[in-house]
Every structure is written in C-alpha cells, then in structure tokens.
C-alpha cells in the first residue's frame, strides 16, 4: 500500500463560483488527474441541499462516485460560533455539539468516514461529540493549520484528550501549509497591489525563509524606509508563515487520518514554490503511511482583488500538484 492521492473540491472554488464547473464537473475534473479521493465542503458545493439533501440527491452523489471511480474521503465541516448577532458570547457548548451532529449525520449519508473540524474548535466540543461520532461511525479530524504549531500546548491538550478517552473517533488532519518556508510570489504581489512596497515585501519574504526573527526584519525594513502599510503587511506575512520541521509530524502519525495538501503556487516543472513537499512525503513514506493527501489549492484567492488583471488557472494548478505528489510518492 502507498500514499493515496485525493482532491479537495475547494481547489476548484473559483470555477464553481463563476459557473464554469458544477459539482459533477468538479468531480469529473478531479478524477481526470488520476486522483481517486474526493474531499467536499458541502457548505460550498452542496449535494442538493445543505444540510438535508433528498434521497435522490444522495443517490446521484453515489452514482457520480461510481461513474468517476472516486471515493468520498473527508467532508469539511464548520461550526459558525458567531451565528447570532448581538450575543455577548459565542454558541454554547451544547449548540456547537448540535452543529457537529448535523455535519456528522450528513457525512454519514454521503459516505464520508471522516469530517475535518477546524483548528479553532476547542477540544471540549470534540470530546462532547464523541458518542455522536461513534453512533454515525464518522471520525472527527481536527486540523493543524498555521499559525497553530505542531508542537503547541493547544495540540497537546487535544492529544491528551484522545489518550484519556482512548478513542479512534478524534483524530488529526495536518495541513501542508505547516511546512511553508515563505509566502508565495502571488501573495507578495497582492500586497504590492494593495499598496505595500515591492522591494520591502520581497526582502521580508526572503528573511522569513531565512528564519530571521521578526524584530530583526522590522529593523531591516525600517532602514529601507518602510511605510505603515509595509509594517502591517510584513507582520501578517510573518504571522501566517510558520515553518514546522517535517520531522515533528512523525510522533503524531498514530493520530493522523488524512492530510490537506495545501498549495499556493505550482511552477511549470510541477514544484510547489513555497512548501517542503519532498521533506514531508519522504517522512510519510518511511512511516508506511497509506492514507489520502487531498490537494487543497488556495492560490486562486490571491488574484481576487479588483485591481488584479490576472486570474489563476485552478485546473492546471491542481493538475501540477497531482503530478508533484505522484512523482514524490512513486520515486
């Protein structure tokens, strides 16, 4: 067995938004790359109706899985804890668990054995939902996503809960964004269109890649004549790019059910320009891991500001990412 390739249909969000691909079109396009796993955000591309598709909608979904020889891998869920305007506090624990139940039930109807729980959902919500997950036989995978670090007290608390409950229904889904060395060129160019200074932004990105502490980067760009906009953008850039050593993933492998193959920018040779794919996949191969990595292309959104003349080609970027993974898995 080896690592399996999937695609999160999130990667084709722009084509769906603009009416170029419908849900079936996204599945067909994913399958055409050789990927066999389908990850879905039903709040983005509902199967019929979210959260209650008809039986006919569900049958149609499974008929697509058959026709395109694909398998549902992971369903991405949200808990809108700011659902009610004007409340002083967020949704209560019970209300959050009810939203989790809504999504566990839908996942089970659509043949998903795993839902992605956002990294901001607290351990106590997942713990309280365990009996429901068991009932529907659907695992809850909390994402590790930057700026949360792999070895952080936040993750430790979650893993302690998994151990204490001795459960297989609470797992982990790491996002490859954890292994980004620097922001991508399209990201930097977007900050420039928004008013930041190109030279200062590229310098900041380079120093983030060199792991220079932000206090020192700040001194550098001060000398370069940074504007308030430059400081702000440089700080955000530093906040969202936190390189985690791929080796740190190894002790967590027994809790990991799935990976999000985050990608922002694939070049013509099918290399991700910012993320250490070779480093991570080499570790996954050494451990004999045989689950799915879902391509999660997010670079399209770096071209959505009104001043941007260019538009990303999601279909080509996803194809390149699949080629990259195939190459690394098979070598």
């Amino acid at each position, binding site marked *: 067995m080896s690592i399996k390739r999937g695609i999160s249909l*999130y990667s084709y*969000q*722009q084509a*769906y*938004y*603009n*009416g170029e691909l419908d849900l079936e079109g996204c599945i067909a396009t994913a399958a055409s790359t050789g990927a066999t796993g389908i990850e879905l*955000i039903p*709040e*983005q*591309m*509902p199967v019929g109706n*979210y959260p209650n598709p008809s039986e006919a909608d569900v049958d149609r979904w499974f008929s697509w899985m058959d026709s395109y020889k694909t398998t549902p891998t992971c369903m991405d869920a*949200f*808990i*809108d*804890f*700011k*659902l*009610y*305007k*004007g409340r002083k506090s*967020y949704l209560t624990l019970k209300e959050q668990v009810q939203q989790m139940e809504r999504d566990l039930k839908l996942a089970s109807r659509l043949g998903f054995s795993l839902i992605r729980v*956002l990294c*901001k959902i607290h351990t106590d919500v997942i713990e309280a939902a365990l009996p429901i997950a068991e009932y529907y036989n659907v695992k809850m995978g909390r994402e590790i996503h930057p700026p949360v670090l792999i070895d952080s007290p936040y993750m430790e608390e979650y893993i302690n809960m998994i151990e204490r409950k001795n459960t297989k229904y609470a797992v982990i889904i790491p996002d490859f964004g954890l292994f980004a060395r620097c922001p991508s060129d399209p990201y930097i160019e977007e900050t420039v269109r928004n008013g930041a200074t190109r030279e200062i932004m590229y310098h900041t990105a380079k120093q983030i890649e060199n792991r220079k502490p932000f206090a020192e980067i700040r001194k550098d760009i001060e000398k370069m004549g940074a504007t308030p906009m430059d400081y702000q953008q440089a700080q955000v850039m530093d906040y969202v790019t936190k390189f985690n050593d791929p080796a740190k993933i190894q002790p967590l492998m027994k809790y990991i059910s799935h990976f999000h193959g985050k990608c922002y920018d694939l070049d013509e040779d099918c290399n991700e320009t910012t993320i250490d794919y070779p480093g991570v996949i080499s570790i996954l191969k050494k451990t004999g891991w045989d689950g799915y990595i879902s391509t999660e292309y997010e670079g399209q*959104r770096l071209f*959505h*500001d*009104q001043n*941007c003349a260019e538009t990303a080609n999601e279909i080509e970027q996803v194809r390149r990412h699949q080629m990259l993974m195939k190459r690394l898995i098979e070598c």
Partner: protein
Amino acid sequence: MYDKFMTNPNDVENVVMNGVVVGLNIKVKIPYYRGVCLSLVEDAKVIVGDLLGEKIYTKDQMTFTVGGCTYDFDDMETITTVRWEFGEKAILFVPVLNGISEYGPTNLEVQVKIRASYNPHLKAGVTRMTVDRSASKVVER
C-alpha cells in the same frame, strides 16, 4: 474575498414601478468561500455617485432577495435556516430614485460583509464599477 467576481455592471438593473424608476437591483454573489445562513450577512452598503454628487445607502434602506424571498436586513439577523449559497446571486434592492443617471455614467461601490466566525479580520467584499443608463437593464416591479 472574491471582490472582482462578486458583481459587475451587467448585474445592475433599474427597477421601474408605474413608469418611474424607484431604485436599483444589484445582483451580488457572496464575498466568502462558502455559503452562510442569513444571520451571518453582517452588513451591506452601496455608494452611488454621478454628476449630481454622491449618496450612501445603508442596509436599513435596502432589501435582500435570495431563493425567491425578500428580507429586511433587520429580520435577517435572526434567520438561521435560510442560506445564501456560494456562487448564488442574491439581489440587493437599493432605493436610488431615478436609478442609473440619465446625465452620464453612474459610479457604484457595492460592499457586502460576512461575519466570519474564524476570521475576525475578514474585510467586506468591495466592487467599484461604472454603469451607463443606455446599457443598463430595466425590470418592472
């Protein structure tokens, strides 16, 4: 998010009632990466500018139509069972008397903000566009 795709001049119509233009229908898609229930549509604002000056319309002056039903923004705050889906065109009705100007191009700035639980810094989606009366569509109310 999705600023450059959320609306465009072809999505703007003059709304006519008894022969008088009573406002604009602006078709707009959600400036977010997924659909949400109506309680999460936090704010909307439309700035209309022409030769005669600039006027700002706030959400209390507008209505929001999705799935064939029309809502006031005040009512939407408590609606958690109706959704505005990703990529679906909703209609903002803005009571701009005489609609798109007869006296030259009208500049429109459309802003829609979603209350995103996970991203407190999510900015409103903003589209700025210029619409000509001759090119704009008319719809009867």
